[in-house]
């Protein structure tokens, strides 16, 4: 219902609380090593939210998300060195450009479903990987590709957020806006259309829903979020490396979104924490960070076998049971 657009659920309050904590407390208490890891984790939270959204709302598996992040990052870097736009303009333009790429990807992909759709998106990720490793990311060189040998020219970060601590805050705000963007869609007419499409495409068509349009729209949103997160990642490091955007990373971010729980905001956060923070922890403890892959594998098995709603689903379920038990005990 439209009048419920601004209603905040208990889980919503929890999300806003976590965002406030990440905004106010985290940047003040962690060192530079963790600032960079947490900023990167926040960027991947946004990317994971896009791929989880497509999976949870429409059951579509997209294995291009990290590749699309690369497109966003590439466009942002290209704009940064070609023009004197402020960071926010680059962010919006890169997100929009990536959204259009999402639509273009949707055109052939929408003729397929399930495994075949996943394969098409994986092939697109493979193609992007080759393009990135061949042409690299702009770093201030001349020409269209803008690549030069040697150290990169300076990247203009957001004027609002000088320094890594302020930048983490900036990214947390952007990620929160991304979640609100998805939630707003879910509560308005696209959310209704998506819910019916997931129920049955025939029923959606019978209710006047243009199935192709709404599926394309979903691809566009996932692209928009990927583009924005790629730009934020570029802003964090000042440069991008093609190794970040290889196709296995797209598979990883999708798998971790399922492990985290695709239908909850917390699921995307869990996915990004597993993806970025866990290897960082292992590194700090002097353990080989590849151990993270073993943990990911165990997590995936766990999700497939016992937790269809992911870790986030288990957390919310556990909290729900605890609350009802406490309520029951008080009566």
């Amino acid at each position, binding site marked *: 219902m439209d009048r419920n657009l601004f209603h905040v659920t208990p889980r919503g309050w929890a999300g806003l609380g976590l965002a406030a904590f990440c905004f106010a407390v985290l940047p003040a208490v962690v060192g530079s090593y963790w600032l960079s890891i947490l900023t990167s984790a926040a960027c991947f939270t946004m990317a994971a939210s896009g791929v989880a959204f497509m999976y949870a709302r429409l059951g579509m598996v997209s294995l291009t998300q990290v590749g699309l992040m690369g497109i966003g990052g590439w466009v942002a870097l290209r704009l940064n060195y070609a023009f004197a736009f402020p960071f926010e303009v680059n962010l919006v333009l890169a997100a929009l450009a990536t959204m259009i790429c999402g639509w273009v990807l949707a055109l052939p992909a929408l003729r397929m479903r399930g495994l075949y759709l996943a394969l098409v998106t994986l092939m697109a990720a493979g193609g992007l990987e080759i393009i990135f490793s061949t042409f690299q990311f702009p770093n201030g060189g001349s020409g269209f590709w803008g690549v030069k040998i040697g150290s990169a020219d300076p990247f203009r970060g957001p004027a609002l957020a000088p320094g890594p601590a302020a930048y983490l805050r900036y990214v947390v705000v952007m990620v929160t806006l991304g979640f609100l963007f998805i939630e707003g869609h879910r509560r308005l007419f696209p959310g209704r259309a998506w819910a019916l499409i997931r129920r049955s495409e*025939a029923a959606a068509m*019978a209710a*006047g*829903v243009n199935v192709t349009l709404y599926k394309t729209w979903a691809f566009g949103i996932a692209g928009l979020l990927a583009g924005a997160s790629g730009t934020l990642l570029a802003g964090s490091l000042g440069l991008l490396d093609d190794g970040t955007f290889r196709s296995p990373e797209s598979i990883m971010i999708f798998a971790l979104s399922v492990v985290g729980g695709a239908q909850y905001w917390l699921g995307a956060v869990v996915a990004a924490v597993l993806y970025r923070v866990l290897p960082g922890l292992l590194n700090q403890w002097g353990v080989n960070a590849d151990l993270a892959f073993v943990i990911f594998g165990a997590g995936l098995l766990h999700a497939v076998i016992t937790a269809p709603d992911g870790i986030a689903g288990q957390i919310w379920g556990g909290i729900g049971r605890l609350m009802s038990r406490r309520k029951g005990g008080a009566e």
Partner: protein
Amino acid sequence: MIEVEGVLVRFGGVIALNEVSARFTAPVAGIIGPNGAGKTTLMNVISGFVTATAGRILVEGEDFLALAPHRRAHRGLRRSFQKDQIADDLTVFDNVLVQLDFTLAGGAAKRAEVMRMLDVVGLADRAGRIGAELTGFERRLTDVARCLVGRPRLVMFDEPAGGLSVEETHRLGELIQGIHGLTGAQTLVIDHDVELIARVCAETLVLDFGRRIAFGPTADVLADPRVKAAYLGTEEVAP
């Protein structure tokens, strides 16, 4: 008026509908026949989920076969399916509102219309419940409400009484009979419940093996010996 003209549908070597023609003029018309007779196929041709090899479907003179399925809904076609099509994570209200989302009417007008139709089917007090919490009959009523909003011209029900109790079927029959007076739409009903068809449908089309074996006022059709032979399986009667 709904005109079905020479509709031919083939699935590989099987002829699912063999040049079926009928001109429905009654406010509520029925389609009956044994399993596999082509009833649902005919409904799917009208909805656009199955493509006819030949033939025409005219709704108030407008050729529907040229339109994409969702455009037919925009032009006033509504239908329910054998299995209810209620999204579990949407409220009853949103499950009905989705039918109006393509229109450009104002939000307040849409909400008022949804509430009016939920009131008609008797779900106004449960508008805020999510689909997962509904009983089978409440889900069916939500389907009916979705068929009523947005000025429908043709409403089709595919076995709406499946799984319902006698009282629920009775209530559903009353609702179906009220559709024409409420919205001006014509209604087509497929059901195995001959009593329901006899009660609510003024005219009935009988299909068997993809052919039309009878069409006309329901009482006459049900008394037709060929219909009894094909549908009720009494005895073999030469055509």
